């Protein structure tokens, strides 16, 4: 996953041609059913009510999404019970989970954990595809995806410790902690990158001895984080060394790209909601949406969403074909969609006026999802810094 650019030469697209950045009819159909389900089963008053309970996810909604619509197995091959679809379709579902600010573990389980397992073809994929099991890759949600598999297989918070007598083969004992993991609270299995010789990626049962899960009061309560502590917890080895690093890497890059699409969905929802509101809200005896001061701001949001959409589609298309330009595409998309979502959500609050500042109105759900999502898997600034290297634009003070 590295791209090198020679000094003085613009980085060229490896495959030369521009992929199709539109949505196919099948993708639009998929969007329609996911949007319909989430609008029906997870409308925002339900999301708002749920964040004040101790159960962060909505198991019924997730079951419907995962099994009835097959969203859990979208990326999993058909011979494992999945749909064998690509990141293009997965991105459309991500947009809709953002559009609904849905409290479901789609990103953490069906994208990040699934992508981490696809390379090794682990048996867990069958359960994930069926929607019987959810998994979480135990990497901090705020972590910028590393550039290489070697980078992914670096010391984290969890170490491999000594086996205990009677431990089965192909297992490891793990100790340590990982802070701020997304979609861990509802996960049945944790995929734990563990530092040792060899570096391992292990599947740890959430209910196993030696696993402690502490919910974090999170900026985005619709996707609450958790701190995980492992104390000699027994894990089944999924992959080791380079293969384990490649799995972690694949999970995080897929996560960053699909999170960009999710952010696009958040931005679109903010825009739709705000446009609808300013058409209805009257002040000075006319709809406030007739004032140019507001129209121009919404036009700017629409432009930003339009631009971000192209970046998100490009990233999904590159990831779907394993294009050599994927690192550039994902960094662009994560930066553009993150900023578009935050800007759209801030405008959503502002243009709603007083009601937008209340707890009872859903604008804050979108704002918190937008800001959290823009920080997760690398901030826009971090991704632009990564682009500097790929684009051959070295920082000040560095020759060449």
């Amino acid at each position, binding site marked *: 996953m590295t791209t090198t650019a020679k*000094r*003085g030469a*613009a*980085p*060229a*697209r490896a495959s030369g041609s*521009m992929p*199709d*950045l*539109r949505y196919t009819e099948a993708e639009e159909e998929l969007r329609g059913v996911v949007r319909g389900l989430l609008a029906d089963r997870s409308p925002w008053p339900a999301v708002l009510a749920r964040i004040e309970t101790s159960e962060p996810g909505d198991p019924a909604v997730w079951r419907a999404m995962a099994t009835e619509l097959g969203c859990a197995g979208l990326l999993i091959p058909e011979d494992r019970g999945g749909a064998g679809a690509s990141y293009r379709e997965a991105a459309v579902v991500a947009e809709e989970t953002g559009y609904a600010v849905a409290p479901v573990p789609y990103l953490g389980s069906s994208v990040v954990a699934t992508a981490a397992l696809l390379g090794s073809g682990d048996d867990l994929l069958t359960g994930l595809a069926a929607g019987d099991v959810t998994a979480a890759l135990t990497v901090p949600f705020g972590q910028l995806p590393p550039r290489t598999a070697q980078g992914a297989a670096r010391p984290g918070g969890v170490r491999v410790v000594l086996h205990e007598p009677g431990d089965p083969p192909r297992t490891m004992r793990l100790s340590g902690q990982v802070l701020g993991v997304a979609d861990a609270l509802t996960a049945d299995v944790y995929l734990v990158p563990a530092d040792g010789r060899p570096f391992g990626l292990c599947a740890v049962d959430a209910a196993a001895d030696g696993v402690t899960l502490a919910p974090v009061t999170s900026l985005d309560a619709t996707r609450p984080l958790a701190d995980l502590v492992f104390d000699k917890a027994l894990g089944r080895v999924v992959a080791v060394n380079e293969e384990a690093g490649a799995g972690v890497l694949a999970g995080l890059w897929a996560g960053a790209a699909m999170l960009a699409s999710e952010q696009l969905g958040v931005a679109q929802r903010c825009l739709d909601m705000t*446009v609808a509101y*300013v*058409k209805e809200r009257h002040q000075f005896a*006319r*709809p406030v*949406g*007739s*004032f*140019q001061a*507001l*129209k*121009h701001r*919404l*036009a*700017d949001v*629409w*432009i930003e969403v*339009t*631009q*971000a*959409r*192209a*970046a998100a*589609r*490009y990233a999904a298309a590159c990831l779907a074909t394993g294009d050599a330009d994927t690192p*550039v595409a994902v*960094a*662009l998309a994560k*930066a*553009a969609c993150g900023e578009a979502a935050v800007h759209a959500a801030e405008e959503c609050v502002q243009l709603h006026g007083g009601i937008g500042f209340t707890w009872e109105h859903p604008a804050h759900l979108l704002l918190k999802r937008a800001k959290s999502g823009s920080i997760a898997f690398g901030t826009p600034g971090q991704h*632009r*810094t990564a*682009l*500097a290297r790929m*684009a*051959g*634009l*070295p*920082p*000040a*003070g*560095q*020759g*060449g």
Partner: protein
Amino acid sequence: MLTPDQTAADDLRKRVRAFLAEHDPASLPRLDFLHARFDAGLAWVHYPEGLGGLGLPRALQAAVDAQFAAAGAPDNDPARIGIGLGMAAPTILAYGTQEQKERWLRPLWTGEEVWCQLFSEPGAGSDLAGLAARAVRDEEGERWLVSGQKVWTSMAHAARWGLLLARTDPDVPKHAGLTYFGCDMTVPGVEVRPLRQLTGEAEFNEVFLSDVAVRDADRIGAVGEGWKVAQATLMNERVAIGGGALPREGGMIGLAAAAWRDHPERRTPGLHDQLLRLWADAEVARLAGARLRQLLAAGQPGPEGSAAKIVFARLNQELSAWELEFTGADGLRYDDWSLSRPESVSFFGRGPGYRYLRARGNSIEGGTSEILRNIIAERVLGLPTEPRTDTKVPWKDLPR
């Protein structure tokens, strides 16, 4: 198996090859070659047969142009006849009579007849529909006599024809009293004067019309329908200004990136940060342009082109301002203030000071960015118009 599109592309490739076999680009005089290419339907394949096209999808044209270029064939100097190709031709195709299409399109495409646009007036810029140039029909009804002043007319000094929007009925509300004509620029009463701009040169002209005779046969669209016809021209203008497929770093960002790579001694952290943001924005805009062209491949330009134009203007302005600042003390020098008359605008081949100054016009020409935001807000987002006092009263009664 080939899709119908691939089959069409394949057939077209063979057709161009056969044409080139019969018409040697190296030995045929340039105009003879261009005439033959037009008559073979290979000028613009999406136009109808008999009018330079073959009635094929617009998306196939790029490959045809590339095939001719690869064969070393002469082109029609598209930069010089941009208004004809980008605005006059689609308008004539949509609203012209069969006779007009047959008379105008062939010499337009070959570049034998240059077109200009007689729309804006000193008193009618953003409020184009308020224009005052008056066209009065003579008693036989065969001719119109036109008097008034037009401004910002590029290529008027070289043009054979002008796209003229004139007021034919001052007694009705302003949008209803306009009619659209093709105006022969060589007849008596047409006076063209250079209009010097803040860069020092004169790309544009003022055109003074004094009892200019325009044949009724050169009217495009019905009397009083000029506003509707003009909309088609303007939509195409925005696509032309915002569009164009470029490789990565193909636009003004390429100049900024090259300057950064060539001058390590001028680099500062602040400018690096700005450059990375601009690089990412330019690349995302390029992707959005590609996506827009994919969406347009089948259909007609809509208000979406306005977004591309706003983004293009902002990027050009920010990039050129960045580049001038990066140039440092050398940026205090300017290359040339003399009154030249360029036939087409190019940001390349001049210094960063010129680029900075010329880019200021990008958010004014072809619809100011503020007017374009209104268009997006009203036609894309469906927001209400500002309350207006000028649309229901006769034009002659409006304050001015």
